[in-house]
């Protein structure tokens, strides 16, 4: 059988030399829901130990990007490498804070039990949550400052406290790379402060955090690396270099007419 490509061809490999030290390397990633592309040809390399803000308008595919990195939505094309390996081999290195609204807070569990869920991956099948895991969960609650609410049922917590429970659950995962989906959305001032100091603490410990963020006013204060996203990556780099008027205009202002046009056509073909 004739193959179109074989080893004799020389490919230009622009991937980094030591992939193990790169927390997140995304190559040519496209994700589509029902034929409608949500993110398009995303190329991204995130260096170790950065606080990364992912910023873009509504529907820019920020949440989808985080989900695609963790195999939660099928990739249409492309690949994602976490510390140089596919996600399924690196689950233990990744912590996840989903959007707060994504779950039902009326669920009959306590704050401590939700946080302990972060350790389930390490506990494995059938075994119960043990003393060790409970201690880990309690410590995580302490780090976000609500250890006194450990036994509260989660519907009795305020929005900010619920957000902290989610953060604590990610802490209990004891990861190197954290994906956080809008942790600052609709939280009180005290929680915002607590989250910021937690991010700095994680950063100080050499962890990498990818944080979807909405408030442009605080971007420069919170993050040292920035990804501007609107279906594709508009810019990615140190905040000081990337956070420019021109880039923001590209991200938020005006429609990216050509890309939209193509997406529209694809949708019509699909019908």
């Amino acid at each position: 059988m004739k193959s179109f490509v074989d080893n004799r061809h020389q490919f230009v490999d622009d991937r980094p030399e030591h992939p193990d030290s790169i927390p997140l390397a995304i190559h040519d990633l496209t994700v589509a829901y029902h034929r409608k592309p949500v993110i398009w040809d995303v190329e991204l390399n995130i260096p170790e130990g950065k606080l990364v803000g992912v910023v873009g308008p509504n529907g820019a595919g920020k949440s989808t990007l985080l989900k695609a990195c963790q195999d939660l939505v099928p990739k249409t094309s492309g690949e994602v490498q976490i510390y140089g390996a596919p996600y399924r081999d690196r689950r233990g290195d990744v912590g996840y804070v989903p959007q707060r609204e994504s779950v039902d807070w009326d669920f009959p569990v306590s704050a401590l039990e939700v946080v302990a869920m972060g350790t389930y991956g390490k506990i494995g099948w059938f075994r119960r949550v043990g003393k060790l895991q409970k201690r880990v969960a309690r410590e995580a609650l302490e780090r976000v400052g609500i250890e006194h609410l450990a036994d509260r049922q989660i519907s009795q917590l305020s929005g900010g406290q619920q957000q902290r429970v989610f953060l604590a659950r990610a802490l209990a995962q004891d990861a190197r790379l954290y994906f956080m989906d809008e942790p600052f959305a609709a939280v009180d001032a005290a929680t915002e402060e607590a989250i910021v100091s937690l991010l700095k603490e994680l950063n100080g410990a050499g962890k990498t955090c990818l944080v979807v963020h909405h408030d442009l006013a605080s971007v420069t204060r919170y993050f040292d690396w920035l990804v501007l996203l609107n279906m594709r990556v508009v810019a990615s780099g140190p905040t000081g270099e990337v956070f420019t008027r021109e880039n923001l205009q590209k991200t938020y202002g005006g429609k990216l007419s050509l890309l939209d046009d193509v997406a529209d056509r694809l949708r019509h073909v699909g019908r």
Partner: protein
Amino acid sequence: MMLRIGCVMLVVNRGKGLGFFLTVMFLVLGTVIAGAQESFWPEGSYVWKVITLQTYNSRLVILSSALLGVASGMAGTFLLLRKRSLMGDALSHATYPGIGFGFLVMVLLGGDGKWLPGLLLGATSTGVLGVLMVVAIRNTTCLKNDAAMGIVLGVFFGFGAALMRMVSDLPGADAAGLDSFIYGTAASMVSSDFLLILLVTGGVCLASLLLLKEFTLVCFDEDFAASQGWPTLFLDLTMLGLVTAVTVVGLQAVGLVLIIAFLIIPATAARFWTDDLRVMLALAALMGGAGGWLGSSLSSLFMDLPTGAVIVLVSACIFVMSMLFGPARGVLPRALRHVRLRRKVGRQHLLRAIYEILEGQQPDVAEPIRNLPVDLAFLVAHRSWSLSELNLLLRRAQTEDHLEDAIEGQVRLSEAGFGEAARITRNHRLWELYLIRYADIAPSHVDRDADLVEHVLDAEVVGQLESELQGRPLSLEVPPSPHFIDQHAGS
């Protein structure tokens, strides 16, 4: 006897959750038995014999129904928490064509077509097919769960009805009795049916206990579960498998129309009593079991009543009781909490009003506020109270020893009342200050919000507010109000 035990337990056990539930159940049981002693009801000793399984005829049916109740209570808990309550309904209706298929195949193979395991096997296969179809429709189209379930439910049941008609016209086959699977006939159960139900109940209990952690995670946060590498689809299908097993073995006893009530009622009733999933699971099993036991006992005492229907009605009684009395989220406990809060708010408003009037009467800021009698006229003018409201508040304050005797037309705080008034006013001011400083609220708008929130402030929050507001006094001194208090028009 039971009634007495129940009453004693009610007195002894004023705790929450399981104990309280058992107490109420005893009361129900007692009432049923006491009622059964009336003349036109079956004789009391006979009722007792039936309920305690001493009659051979009904023993098997009662035990089977109770076991089925336990299994469906547990399986239903996960169904409910996964927000798939109606999946049980789609599933049970989807079993109908399977019964026809099972019959058809067995007749074609030369049997009489009524062999129960064969029929249940057929029911299982189309039931599973129905569930898979719901999942497939949901995953491949834009349709949501409810629409997918509605489609599957209707189409499968319609197909089943058509198929039943066709097989009943087969030459040489007697399909009479197949339609009993729609409403169920528990009285026709034999010991092998009981063993099957026992087996399924054991399986459901075992799976629920072994996979409790996994099921909980998937029900609560599917994405997070998937991100940790848990096979969410497999766990989902396992949960639905338990529901399928319960549904299929329940077909004979309760029928495919009512099985949904078996699955959902115990779980929803249990939710009223607790905020802990494990307790909820145990309670749902207990309630399902109790409903099955009592319901089938009643139906065997009144032979004309269909078992499934009576069980569902008994379960409905348990549900209504839970809805009314369940301490976690029942209607009455919630109303009681609301009344208590309103009383607390009323008391705090009264004490603070008196304190603020005293402040107004003693303008010298260097001097501490002294506890003097206050004219009732000032008090009426201070807030928009009606006279009857104010009288009620004052009477309550008197019974709480917050007021001392004073001359006609005046009120005077007691020592305790004055201390309480100072504490409440201080908390209120601290909260107002906090809001002004941190929440960007104009001072003139603060009081309303502070009124609502101060009533839930505990010592810890007060301490936090004090440290947030550096430079504020830490002693029992009350900071001045940040806004103007109109002594005559209310604040």
